[in-house]
């Protein structure tokens, strides 16, 4: 990481991120990662599974 790059952390889970997934603004004061955003907005993707019968 260069001196010009600032480490960002998700305000929810504190994981390291490149930028806010919601607003994509460099100066966001409460950046959020993709996973936490998807959880918050109920946008978790369904994955295939088999039903019985």
């Amino acid at each position, binding site marked *: 990481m260069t001196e010009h790059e600032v480490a960002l952390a998700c305000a929810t889970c504190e994981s390291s991120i490149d930028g806010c997934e919601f607003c994509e603004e460099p100066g966001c004061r*409460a950046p959020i990662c993709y996973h936490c955003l998807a959880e918050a907005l109920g*946008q978790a993707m*369904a994955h295939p599974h088999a039903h019985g019968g």
Partner: protein
Amino acid sequence: MFDYEDGKLDWLAAGLPSEGTNAQRPRAGDIARKDVPTCRLDERLGDVRDRARGAGWDACVVLNEERVVFGLLRSKELKASPDLRIEEAMRPGPSTFRPFVSIEEMAAFMTEHDLDSSPITTSDGRLVGLLRRQDAAKAALELHEREHHSNGGQT
């Protein structure tokens, strides 16, 4: 017997209608403005800006022929040099949100992040509309007041 494996979430993400108690509450796709100006990648920024502002908008969504969202022009992007092609001027690959997301969540996020507008798209990226912060906040407030009053003022 058939199994719709992708299930309810896939159906809702496609912006298709549903029934149930959640369907009575406004969601992002219901409040998003369907009349948002749109443009193509190869258009001239100055022409698009004139068209958008002539329609009373300060934003424009960039689509391909299949109405898939490629980019966004908000106020800042529309102020760039008028001779730029849209592809050069736009904000590419903006964050998009599904039609079924609750309007209260969107209003809260847009306010917290100071975001003026968000494209609402189906799961395959097609534009449903542009959700403006003021519309989201108004709908969320009306919903809160409606539900607050229906509970007899109890929280």
